[in-house]
């Protein structure tokens, strides 16, 4: 991790930062040989003044320091179920033993490492703080993030070990046995559809480098991560912090120094964790090269897997697990040759469509400035997947927000995989009209959500109603983007882990958890009277962006909001849907009738007609696909559905 320039580049440097920036830099620099001497703790020499900094325990694991987590939302619901997540952010997760980390440096928390290395240069060159996945952060959030991971790294490490063991146990392919027929073939197939079957190995975040030969920052960094981390950035950070150091007065200097120390501590812990991750990834690769895993077997749904998924999937297993649990690999295996990604994509040749126009509009507006989407080649990939899907699913075509979802997928999987994962999301996990032209099911879900909030947190809706801001206005973005960019990246990924396994009820659980965790703040804001409806809206909308403590959020989602079986959601959907469908049809019909009289001007206040030639096609298309809805979308196994609710 490029923690050194993270400090320097992202915050106000202070005199104290001179030392600490250099210290963090040294910490990071030691990762050069850190691979080799992982056991040697580089931290002592990186902290120039250990005695003045009682907080600066270099061992994150021996210093859980819950105070260092700035996340305002601490879990109000103590978790009675030890299996389903710690209510302590630094992990009461079955953790081998305290202080054991030095002996398990190889615990591969491989999450993030390649990304970090890849965009470390970006970060230092632009000075914009980014999270470990390359997304921009505000300076405050960058700090919050660093603080969180300082105490979270060892949880990630432990998780990787557990998953590796699980995958090896369940998915081991016996010598000579064919790799589990078609199914695993499908899973393993990289972007080039012609590639023969091969079992999978765990992957670093973006593993499609070889498949498409792209030069994307992430994949390119996969192998050179240690040196990337170590060589360039630290020196830079040093220089930067020195040159920029202002001269604050004594008091603020003291405060700043203190803050800097806390930060540096977090950075150090992060550097250390990253180093461990790098090592573990290499190890995992080596291990899996020897004993390949059959993903269909390894990640077949079962209670044990579900519990593990709820606790989070390690980054390198995510693509494989998502493809299995979402049903994407089954969709792909069952597809006829005509439905194959490459075949569908070939149909797009020379074609133009409304969907394509809109997709082209959005390519540059999907995570602008994100290092992995800078390259034209990566944008081309995003375009291909979206275009191919618009051909596969013509009732949907393309809906804004799918661009964000697919880009997010492509950061960690091949085009082919993203295509099928998108298909599974829209066709198996969500109701059919979520992204369709009518978006009826999306509206329905917002109403369902509003009703759930009213039932579970009755004090809230009146606040929003009084301000004329329906809460759905805020939450529709959460749902439509599947929490991409609404919450921090790792938190989104945790939502996805559970969503692909358990289906759309997870979106509700997370939304309810978010609202519940902000309830006190919202109540306080409302009583302050100083705030307008719009400001309330924006404040609430921005709150989730700093929910770095994904464990606490997911724990709250599973255990803190009461019972919410998929069946209940389906019932509510079924009840609300007819009205919303009717409203939509009325609307569409009105446009169609008006369309009959072209050319007339539109007096705003009058009752005259207008010209709506363009609406015609859209409206009728909508009506024609509107009756094919599917309200039984939760694919989760309903028997174990809400096991945590009752506990």
């Amino acid at each position, binding site marked *: 991790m490029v923690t050194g320039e993270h400090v320097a580049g992202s915050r106000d440097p202070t005199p104290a930062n001179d030392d600490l920036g250099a210290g963090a830099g040294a910490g990071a620099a030691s990762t050069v040989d850190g691979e080799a001497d992982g056991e040697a703790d580089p931290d002592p020499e990186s902290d120039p003044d250990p005695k003045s900094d009682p907080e600066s325990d270099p061992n994150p694991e021996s210093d859980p320091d819950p105070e260092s987590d700035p996340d305002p939302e601490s879990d109000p619901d103590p978790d009675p179920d030890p299996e389903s997540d710690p209510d302590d952010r630094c992990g009461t997760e079955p953790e081998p033993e305290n202080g054991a980390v030095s002996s398990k440096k190889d615990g591969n928390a491989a999450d993030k490492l390649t990304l970090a290395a890849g965009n470390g240069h970006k970060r230092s060159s632009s000075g914009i703080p980014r999270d470990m996945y390359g997304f921009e952060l505000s300076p405050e959030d960058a700090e919050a993030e660093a603080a969180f991971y300082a105490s979270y790294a060892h949880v990630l490490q432990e998780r990787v070990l557990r998953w590796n063991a699980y995958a090896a146990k369940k998915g081991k392919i016996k010598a000579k046995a064919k790799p589990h027929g078609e199914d695993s073939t499908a899973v393993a197939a990289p972007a080039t559809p012609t590639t023969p079957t091969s079992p999978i190995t765990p992957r670093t975040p973006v593993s499609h480098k070889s498949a498409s030969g792209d030069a994307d920052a992430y994949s390119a960094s996969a192998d050179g991560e240690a040196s990337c981390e170590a060589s360039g950035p630290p020196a830079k950070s040093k220089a930067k912090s020195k040159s920029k150091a202002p001269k604050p007065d004594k008091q603020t200097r003291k405060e700043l120094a203190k803050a800097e120390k806390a930060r540096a501590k977090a950075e150090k812990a992060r550097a250390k964790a990253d180093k461990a991750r790098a090592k573990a990834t290499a190890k995992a690769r080596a291990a899996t090269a020897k004993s390949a895993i059959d993903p269909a077997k390894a990640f077949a749904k079962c209670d044990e897997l579900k519990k593990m998924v709820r606790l989070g999937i390690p980054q390198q297993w995510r693509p494989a697990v998502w493809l299995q649990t979402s049903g994407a690999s089954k969709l792909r295996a069952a597809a006829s040759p005509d439905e194959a990604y490459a075949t569908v994509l070939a149909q797009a040749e020379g074609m133009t469509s409304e969907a394509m126009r809109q997709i082209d509009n959005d390519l540059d507006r999907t995570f602008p400035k994100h290092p992995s989407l800078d390259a034209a080649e990566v944008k081309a990939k995003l375009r291909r997947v979206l275009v191919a899907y618009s051909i596969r699913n013509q009732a949907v075509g393309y809906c*804004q927000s799918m661009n964000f979802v697919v880009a997010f997928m492509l950061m960690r999987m091949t085009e082919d995989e993203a295509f099928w994962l998108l298909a599974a999301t829209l066709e198996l996990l969500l109701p059919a009209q979520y992204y369709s032209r009518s978006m009826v099911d999306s509206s329905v879900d917002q109403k369902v959500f509003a009703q759930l909030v009213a039932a579970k947190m009755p004090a809230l809706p009146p606040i929003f109603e009084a301000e004329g801001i329906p809460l759905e*206005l805020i939450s529709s973005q959460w749902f439509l983007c599947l929490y991409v960019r609404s919450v921090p990246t790792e938190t989104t990924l945790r939502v996805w882990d559970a969503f692909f396994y358990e289906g759309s009820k997870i979106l509700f659980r997370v939304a309810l958890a978010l609202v519940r965790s902000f309830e006190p703040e919202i109540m306080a804001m409302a009583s302050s009277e100083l705030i307008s409806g719009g400001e309330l809206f*924006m404040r609430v909308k921005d709150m989730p962006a700093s929910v770095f403590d994904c464990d606490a959020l997911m724990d709250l989602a599973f255990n803190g909001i009461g019972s919410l079986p998929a069946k209940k959601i389906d019932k509510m959907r079924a009840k609300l849907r007819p009205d919303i469908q009717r409203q939509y049809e009325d609307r569409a019909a*009105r446009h169609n009738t008006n369309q009959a009289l072209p050319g007339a*001007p539109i007096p705003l206040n009058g009752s005259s007609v207008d010209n709506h030639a363009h609406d015609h096609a859209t409206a009728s298309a909508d009506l024609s696909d509107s009756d094919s809805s599917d309200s039984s979308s939760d694919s989760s196994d309903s028997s174990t559905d809400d096991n945590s609710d009752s506990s």
Partner: protein
Amino acid sequence: YTVVLIGDSAVGKSNLLSRFTRDEFSLESKSTIGVEFATRSISTDDGKVLKAQIWDTAGQERYRAITSAYYRGAVGALLVYDISKYETFSNVERWLKELRDHAENHIEVMLVGNKSDLRHLRVVMTEDAEAFAQENGISFIETSALDASNVEEAFSSILTKIYEKVSRKSMNSDAAGSGKTKPMANNASKVIVVDNENDDAAPAKKKKCC
């Protein structure tokens, strides 16, 4: 006052808003999903402070079903198109209809031709847009969120109009004892045309309507 920004996708609604409220512009902005909000206060010629609450909406057609709820309560709308994309201008009629169907009857509407800095790519003639605006009894202005020309003017003009309308309305209702009067109906003379090449002309355009 609540004002909404509407218009096709990628015409520059979000950048108009950020230019007006934060004096920021980005060539690399994200697609708006759902709704965004920002606020700013301006003062009128007679010293009143007008607080504008501005909602920015997703442009893709299918989002209208979701966003139309936000038209309610809006007293003004900036209907934005891109002078370098004809389609965004031809869709203006549909947006007007949308407003007629879902917004308040007396909503003040201003047609905004954005991206006026793209002179060499212009495909929508100022006269055409002007004529359209006149026909439909709405005001018109060309802006550039990129070089900031007329952005301030567009917002302050619509806010001033709303302010005037509201004060007149309350006067009318005081006099006639009815709030039902429609002072704005069919007044084509209130069209504002601002040459995008001449930013300085803007203040002169704050003429009274009706």
